[in-house]
């Protein structure tokens, strides 16, 4: 039975007629929620164009395009993401993955247009009304990252253990560690251009992730025939530009490279790299110096079928890698692993052969089709302050070479090292070990012109040297080495205010009022090296074009003005191993071009 109430109750709806409507008054200017995912913003001065946003986009909505006013430089591709709103679905993954945190989403959401081609734009470069909106979606804080910002830690010897001996400090990654570390790579490739050899860094890291280390080795040898060495002592410029490093630790690219090289046994290299048989061309190339550039040139020339002979002044191969870098950083067996592989490709090496003495350059020219010279920088430079000609004042490179050769090295109880580069750290730490062995304690002091923040040495070298109880006291300019007969008393220094002038030229300024005296029994100079061109005859030197500072001029193929002579390595560009490798590789290709044309 219908109740009266059922009939009447619908009319209660009429009470709304006098109430205010619930309608939004102005829906066209309604702001979205604070964290609404609206249109993109990009801080293009922060952005480095790594393209990670492009890679992660499921809808292929992001392109990397050049932008006016953004230059390509190390660590910045000069490209910026362009978003296609005909594709974007505002998932925000590009923001979450952005390595520099430059990309974000504003909470603006209205974009109406007649022309469908207008919906593509470069956020940040093309002005939009929402550029200055604060609200919107940003990458959540509190450690929310799609990749870990923390580097997988490396096993190292404790300082107490390592200053006892020359045993290698860094232990290397385990499989789990390497794969975990490789997982952090976003495969952007920003590092590739910065690496002097342009190694395929993302590719070999990917090989680690895929646990395909043979493939990794092949990628390494494409551009670098000394992976064991580079995996240990490379200056790793790549890591300074790593995009992950903008908000977190950069990837430890160097250790990952070492991991690949370590895991591949030497005896299988030829099989993995498919170099068991090579097609000989019948042409011969002489290479002077078995340093990184020489070895690199020899390797790539050998792959191309050239018969290479290396002439080495010292009784062992490796150049500065063996005679400049202490064993605790680069063990000799690993050095030999790389060198032996190159020799196994048919490269011949003649030890104890000094050019200009045992054989002249002209004779080499007659016997070979081309000559590559990578003689490096082996002459220590001197500060030339009073007292440097004293016999108790040494050159770091000489001492390092003597340590390797097993010669008697003079070690005193109190040693001062002048220099702030990696060689200074090497000699400091090497001598510290010898002091420890001889006297049971370390008393090393290293001073440099450059202050702490601009010291050219690798940061970890300085830290480790201090851990090994060496004193590093940078920012002082040497004035005089005080001597007393055949003894050295110490080093007088004054405060160095600045090293370079506004044009970035070397012009140190000192504050003569702030003085200091470092007492020492022995002083080691390590302020850089020069090249030794004494193997070139005078008449030959006249044929060679040199720049005003006495460097040999080469073209892009590393060919000198004498067409059969190519040159590379530290004496052309450097100084570090990876530049030498890159030079050697390019010179090898240059030689190939030269000999193919001939």
């Amino acid at each position: 039975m219908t109740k009266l109430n059922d009939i009447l109750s619908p009319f209660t709806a009429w009470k709304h007629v006098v109430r205010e409507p619930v309608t939004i008054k102005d829906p066209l200017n309604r702001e979205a929620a604070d964290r609404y995912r609206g249109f993109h913003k990009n801080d293009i001065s922060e952005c480095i164009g790594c393209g990670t946003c492009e890679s992660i986009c499921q809808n292929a909505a992001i392109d990397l395009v050049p932008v006016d006013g953004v230059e390509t430089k190390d660590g910045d591709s000069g490209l910026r993401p362009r978003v296609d709103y005909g594709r974007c679905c505002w998932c925000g993954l590009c923001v979450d993955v952005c390595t520099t945190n430059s990309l974000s989403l504003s909470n603006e959401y209205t974009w109406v247009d007649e022309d469908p081609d207008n919906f593509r734009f470069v956020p940040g470069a093309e002005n939009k009304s929402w550029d200055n909106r604060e609200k919107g979606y940003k990458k959540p804080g509190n450690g929310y990252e799609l990749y870990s910002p923390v580097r997988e830690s490396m096993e190292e010897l404790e300082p107490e253990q390592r200053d006892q001996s020359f045993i290698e400090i860094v232990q290397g990654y385990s499989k789990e560690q390497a794969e975990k570390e490789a997982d952090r790579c976003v495969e952007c490739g920003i590092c590739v251009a910065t690496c002097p050899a342009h190694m395929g860094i993302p590719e070999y890291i990917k090989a680690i992730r895929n646990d395909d280390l043979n493939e990794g080795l092949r990628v390494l040898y494409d551009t670098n025939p000394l992976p064991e060495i580079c995996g240990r002592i490379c200056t790793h410029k790549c890591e300074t530009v790593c995009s992950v490093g903008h908000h977190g630790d950069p990837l430890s690219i160097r250790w990952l490279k070492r991991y690949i090289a370590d895991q591949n046994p030497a005896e299988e290299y030829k099989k993995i790299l498919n170099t068991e048989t090579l097609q000989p061309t019948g042409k011969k190339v002489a290479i002077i110096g078995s340093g990184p550039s020489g070895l690199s040139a020899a390797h790539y020339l050998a792959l191309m079928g050239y018969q290479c002979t290396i002439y080495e002044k010292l009784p062992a191969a490796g150049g500065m890698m063996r005679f400049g870098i202490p064993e605790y950083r680069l063990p000799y067996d690993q050095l030999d692993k790389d060198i032996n592989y190159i020799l196994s490709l048919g490269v011949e090496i003649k030890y104890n052969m000094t050019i200009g003495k045992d054989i002249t350059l002209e004779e080499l020219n007659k016997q070979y089709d081309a000559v590559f010279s990578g003689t490096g920088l082996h002459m220590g430079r001197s500060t030339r302050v009073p007292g440097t000609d004293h016999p108790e004042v040494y050159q770091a490179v000489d001492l390092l070479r003597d340590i390797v050769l097993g010669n008697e090295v003079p070690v005193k109880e109190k040693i001062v090292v002048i220099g702030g580069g990696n060689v200074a750290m090497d000699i400091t730490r090497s001598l510290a070990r010898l002091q420890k062995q001889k006297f049971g304690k370390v008393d090393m002091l290293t001073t440099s012109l450059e202050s702490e923040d601009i010291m050219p040495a690798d940061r970890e070298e300085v830290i480790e040297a201090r851990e090994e109880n060496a004193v590093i006291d940078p920012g002082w300019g040497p004035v005089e080495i005080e001597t007393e007969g055949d003894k050295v008393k110490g080093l007088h220094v004054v405060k160095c205010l600045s090293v370079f002038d506004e044009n970035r030229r070397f012009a140190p300024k000192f504050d003569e009022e702030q003085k200091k005296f470092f007492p020492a029994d022995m002083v080691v100079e390590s302020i850089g090296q020069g090249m030794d061109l004494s193997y070139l005859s005078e008449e030959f030197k006249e044929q060679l074009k040199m720049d005003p500072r006495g460097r040999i001029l080469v073209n892009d193929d590393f060919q000198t003005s004498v067409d059969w002579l190519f040159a590379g390595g530290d004496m052309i560009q450097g100084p570090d191993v990876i530049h030498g490798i890159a030079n050697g590789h390019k010179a090898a290709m240059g030689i190939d071009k030269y000999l193919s044309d001939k």
Partner: protein
Amino acid sequence: MQTIIENLQKHFQVVSYHQQRENLGFLIASKEVAVGLITHLRDYEGFAHLVLLTAVDWIEDEHFQLTYLLHHPEKKVDLGVRVMISRENAEMYSIHHLWEQARTYQRELREMFGINFPGSPDVDKPFILEGWEEIPPYRRDFDTKEYSEKTYFPRPGRETHDPAEYMKKKLYPNE
């Protein structure tokens, strides 16, 4: 669940059984016994509801996997019956006589995977795709991206650069 399986094993050849969760399990049955098995499950074990019927293309193993997911309304358990059928001339016995809604699933599978169910009503009629001429789109050897780009012309004017290559070209133009 376990008793049901033990029961089943008495009557049918059950290849393998995998308990995913407490209330969900999967078993693999051969094509020949599958329909009988499902009928048994429905009529004697109380799996009265067909939750879904779907397929997976195991292209590497050259077979399709059909999954009949059955629900037991009283016990609140689900049992999936998996049947592997050959990819070539893919064909399966229809179960539309057991559940009316199976005909829709079968029509969809016919269209999307090319699995035939002879006798299923309307199984040859187009379902979602009208006038499809390629291989069935859910087969894994069908390249949907390529087809889309070929057929639906994406808006032109897009270009992109690989950062690594672009930087090498910009910074070292001579190499």
